[in-house]
Structures are given as C-alpha cells and as structure tokens.
C-alpha cells in the first residue's frame, strides 16, 4: 500500500515528463507534401552504436569523386580523416587533391598550394554567387551538417539519394532543369541524379551500386554531422549507469533518514 503510493507519486512525476516529451514537442514533420524518409537500420543507432568506418571511408571516396564538385564540407578538416581510420599519408593524399588559396606571400601576392591536413575541406566555389552561376541559379548546400539539418536525418540523406525517378508521375508539371524526387520538399529538386551504378570504383571490391554508394554517403555525412558520437555514447552509458547507482544509494539514504521520524 505504502510502497504503492510512493510508486504512484513517483510515476506521476515520470508521466508528466513523458507527456511533455510526446505531446508538447512539435511534430515538425510538416515538410509539405514530401514523402517521409524510409527508416534504415544504421550501425550507429542505439546506446552502444558505433561508426561503420569502412562504409564512412567509402562515403569519403564518393564525396571526393562525385559530390565535392558542387558541395562544400566547410566544418570538416582533412586532419579529421584520421578519426575514421585513414593513416596520415592517406589523409595527406586526400588533402593534396584539393588546391587552396593561401597568402599573401612576401610579395603581397595570393598563391595556390595543395591543401594540408590542417586545412578545412576546400569548397568547390569561392562564394554563393559563383555556386549559383554554375548551377542554374541553385545553391548546393554545405554538407557538413546536412544529416542533422533535416527532420529525417540520415534516413533522409539515404532516401533522397536513392529516390530519384527518371520520369515524373503522370500529371506532374516539372520545372526546367528539375529532377523528380518524392523525398524532397516540393518533390522537385535542382540537383540531377548524382549517383549511377559504378560512378566510383571501390578499392575494397564492394560493388558500387546506387544503393551502396548512397548508404556509404549517408554514413559519411552522419559522421561529418556528429563526429563526437562515439565518444558521447561511450561516456553516456557510463554516466547513466553511475547515476542509476547513485540514485539507488540516495534512495536508501532517504529511507533510512526518514525511518528516524518517530
């Protein structure tokens, strides 16, 4: 009876907490008429989720060989590639494929040099206007945080990349230079389908299907969006475990203290 009451009171607090989470938090999924991204089984999900590093590395290759011709990756530095298992030499090799403007030198001139590990990923265009001019007026967004910047998250990235259709459905009026993609808000996207089977050749022999490359790209962009995830989760379960034990001990202390109340 008494324990039951105590439990009821405690659950009261919990219920309010849960109600707040479920109902007050807005379902910000009002992304117009776009199709809801299909949810996938990612390796990074869950309390003990880890990065799928081989997949992230393949995604890096897809980014460098395909995406980087239009999309920047401003928040990521070449040195960060060591975190996904590249050796220093491998990371340097990736950096050197990009030219970066440096300077001014002793003569006061700006000059081009190959990127170094300490540089951030070099953007394909020097500014937004240049990017728009080269892309029929559309602005390819920076990809560093894209996996966190859409309600669908990584699932959205994957669904979008695999969701291109050659033909718009009957009766859909397409804009000029637009591609049909049901996952994009408005279902018309200025980006032409970027990936086709064998767009890249994976050195590890993985068949480069559209689905595989999209999967790898999604894993890569998840990593660029929250590179701290592994550290966060591994610290997280220890902290929560500690707090659970502490809570239990404090509950015992509370009971013992109150037992003195005669």
């Amino acid at each position, binding site marked *: 009876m*008494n324990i039951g009451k105590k439990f009821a009171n405690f659950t009261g*607090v919990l219920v309010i*907490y849960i109600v707040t989470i479920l109902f*007050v938090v*807005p379902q910000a999924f009002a992304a117009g008429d776009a199709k809801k991204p299909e949810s996938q089984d990612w390796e990074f999900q869950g309390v003990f989720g880890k990065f799928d590093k081989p997949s992230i590395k393949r995604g890096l290759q897809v980014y460098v060989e395909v995406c980087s011709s239009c999309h920047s990756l*401003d928040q990521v530095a070449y040195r960060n590639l060591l975190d996904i298992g590249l050796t220093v030499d491998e990371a340097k090799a990736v950096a050197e494929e990009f030219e970066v403007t440096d300077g001014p030198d002793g003569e006061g001139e700006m000059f081009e040099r190959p990127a170094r590990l300490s540089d951030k990923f070099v953007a394909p265009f020097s500014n937004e206007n240049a990017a728009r001019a080269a892309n029929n007026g559309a602005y390819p967004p920076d990809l560093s945080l894209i996996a966190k910047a859409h309600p669908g998250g990584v699932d959205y990235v994957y669904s979008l990349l695999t969701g291109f259709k050659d033909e718009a459905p009957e009766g859909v009026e397409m804009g000029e230079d637009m591609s049909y993609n049901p996952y994009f808000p408005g279902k018309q996207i200025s980006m032409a389908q970027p990936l086709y089977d064998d767009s890249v050749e994976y050195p590890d022999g993985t068949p480069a299907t559209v689905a595989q490359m999209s999967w790898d790209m999604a894993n890569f962009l998840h990593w660029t969006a929250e*590179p701290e995830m592994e550290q*966060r989760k591994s610290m997280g379960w220890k902290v929560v475990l500690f707090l659970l034990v502490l809570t239990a001990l404090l509950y015992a202390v509370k009971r013992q203290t109150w037992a003195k109340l*005669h």
Partner: protein
Amino acid sequence: MSSNIKQSESSGGGLVKWIDSRLPVFTYLQKEYGEFPAPRNFNYWWNFGAILTFMLVLMIFTGVFLAMQYTPHVDMAFDSVERIMRDVNYGWLLRYLHSNGGTFFFIAVYIHIFRGLYYGSYKNPRELLWMFGVTILLLMMATAFMGYVLPWGQMSFWGATVITNLFSAVPLVGDAIVTWLWGGFAVDNSTLNRFFSLHFLLPFVILGVVVLHVIALHVTGSNNPLGIDPKGPQDTIPFHPYYTAKDAFGLAVWITAFAAVVFFAPNFFGEPENYIKANPMQTPAEIVPEWYFLPYYAILRSIDFNLWFIDAKLGGVIAMFGSILVLFVVPWLDTSKVRSARFRPLYKWFFWILLLDCILLGYVGGHPPNEQVFKGVSWLEFIDLGHIGTAWYFFHFLILLPLLGRFEKTKPLPTSITESVLNSGDTSSGRPINSVEEA
C-alpha cells in the same frame, strides 16, 4: 536537533567560530537550511525548487565556459559553435548540456508553477513569493529567447526577426522600438551582439530574483500538500537531514533523465533547421520557436481578428504577454480561502483542464494555423483549436477563478498536518509518517 547551532560552532573549531562571530554565515546556513522547519508532509512535487536551483547553476557554469569559445559576430557565430562541437575539448558536452539544460529548466519550472497552482501556494501570505516566481519565468523566457539566437542558425535568425517584429504592433512608436531593439534597420550584427551581452547578464539577474524568492519563502515558510499552516513543532521537521535527503534523491532521478537525453538524444528537442547557417534571403517553410514557447506562440496567432481599435497583430501581442502577466494577479483572482485543490472538488477538475489546455496550446503552436487537424476534415483547422484554447485559458483565470471561490463547496480541512498524516488512509498526504510506521 534544536542545539545544532552550538554543535556546528563547536565542531567547526576555531576558524569557523572566528568567521562566524564576524560574519554569521554558518549560523545563517544552519538556521535556513539546517533546522529550517518544513512541513512534514511534502510530496515529490516539492522537489522542484532544488532541481531548479541545480539547473540555474548548471546553466551559468556551462554558459560561462561556452562564452569563452563563442564569437558573437554574424559571420563567425555559427562556425564558432561548430568549432566548440568539434575542436574544443568536451565542447560538445558543454553545448549539449547547455542547450538541453534550457529544455529541462523549462520542464522543471512549468512543473513547479503547476504545483503552485494545484496546491494554492500563491495565496496569502505567499503572494509576493509567487510574484517573484512569475518574474523569474519572464526573465527565463527573455534569456532563453536571446540564447537561442546566438548560434545564428536559420531558426535563430528568423525567430529573432518574428519576435522582435512583434513590438512594431505598439501604436505610434512601434517601428521606432523595433529599430531600437535591433540597433539598426534589420536583425544584424548589432542585434546579435546585444543579445549576447544580455544573455550573459540576465542569468545573474535571475539569480538575484531567485535569492529574493528564497528569502520570501523563508519568511512565510513553505506551503504543503494540505495547504493548512503548521500548528506547532509537531507539524514540522528540520530541513536537514529530511528534505536534503529527499531532494538529493529526487535530483538524482532528474539528472539521470537529463543525462540520458544529453548523451543519447541531444537534438531531440531542437529544431533541425537551426543546423543551417542563418540566411536573411531565405525564409524557412515554417518558423517555430523552441517547444517551451509554443503555447504562447499559439495564443499570439489565435488573435486573428480586429477588436474595436485594436488590430489583430496588437491583439495577439497583448494576449501573449497577458497570458503571463495574468499570473501576477492570480493571488487576487482566486477568491477561495482554501489553498490545496485536495479540498476543492471543482477547482481540482478545472486545474487538470487548464493543464490539458496548455498542452493543447503547445500542440497548436507547433502547427501552421491553417493546417487541418485531421487530414481531410476541412472544418477543423489548428487556428480553431487555438481560438478555443486561448479563450479557455483566459476564461479560467479571469472568470472561473473569481467565481469558484464564491460558489464552490469545499471539503472540511483537517485540523492539523500531523493528525491528517497519521490518520490518512484516503489521501496520499501522509507518506512520510506512514513509511516510518510500515517500514
């Protein structure tokens, strides 16, 4: 227990005694947090004072360290936050603690406020204590709003634009006020700079009002679930060790839930769009504030009609600020002499309806006004729910509360806390003593 002052002095030794005789901090702590007589029948809803204190301190500490790494400039703010997330040691932890800390701060403060409403904690003699509390809520809202602007994402920028533009509804001087708030003719660098400055300042103002809140509490003493005054020493217990032990346990439960969100779902409460750098040339599809502002946002948007000389925009702004300002006068709007809803059979129902109403308003605030609540049902849009919810909110405070006190037949009050606690089989008030006897 009563001789604790002497104990602490003698056990503290020479230095403590030396300080205490010159500045009696130890005597004060002993009096206000050691033996401070608290009603013996608090339930766990009385935990939230301690929880809120913890949250305020956490926010100030994480905030000060974040400020060391943050750059308040429109060209650098977004990147400096990402630098904190990526390159600053445990910067991601600081930032997620701070951003989710805001969310948990508001959850706690709303529970604390509804606790006060349920048990009539605002009534004589605690009116001023309550009003300090409402002041803290207002300051928290201003602080949270300005803090949300600092990362300079899309929602930061457009939220700031929408909210500051509200002041243009003020007759005659509205536009001048907005220009003055912005420090220019658009939400721009000077706006970001002053918001950063004020976001740093206001928490310390909050801390000051919290001190007043606590001083006022220690003058009147705490309310309790029965809402009747302690009649003597048998009705109270010293704050330490009883409520320190209870608060510590409650706080640990709270922090565990908080940590679970920070480490495993740190962006759950956030708006994804704010991970896109602010772009004044591109308006997001839907501008929504943080979840804790959604009910007010719904009230703001519910006034979509002109009333006499008040146009819809001004009306919305008045209603939104009015929804909080009305709390200041709740002690006088509620005419019932009985504090606790336990003995107010009608008020109890209306309390829960008010809570549901606020949750409904929050739900409405997260949706475009003209979206259908149920797909295909054309006669019910969110704006309709907003009208109903807003009307009920003000009806509750302005009409229901004054009338209930007159017409409600309240249940008989127990003669004393101890008696009620010892005899209780029917109410849940008596846990402390019960637990002793059954343990």
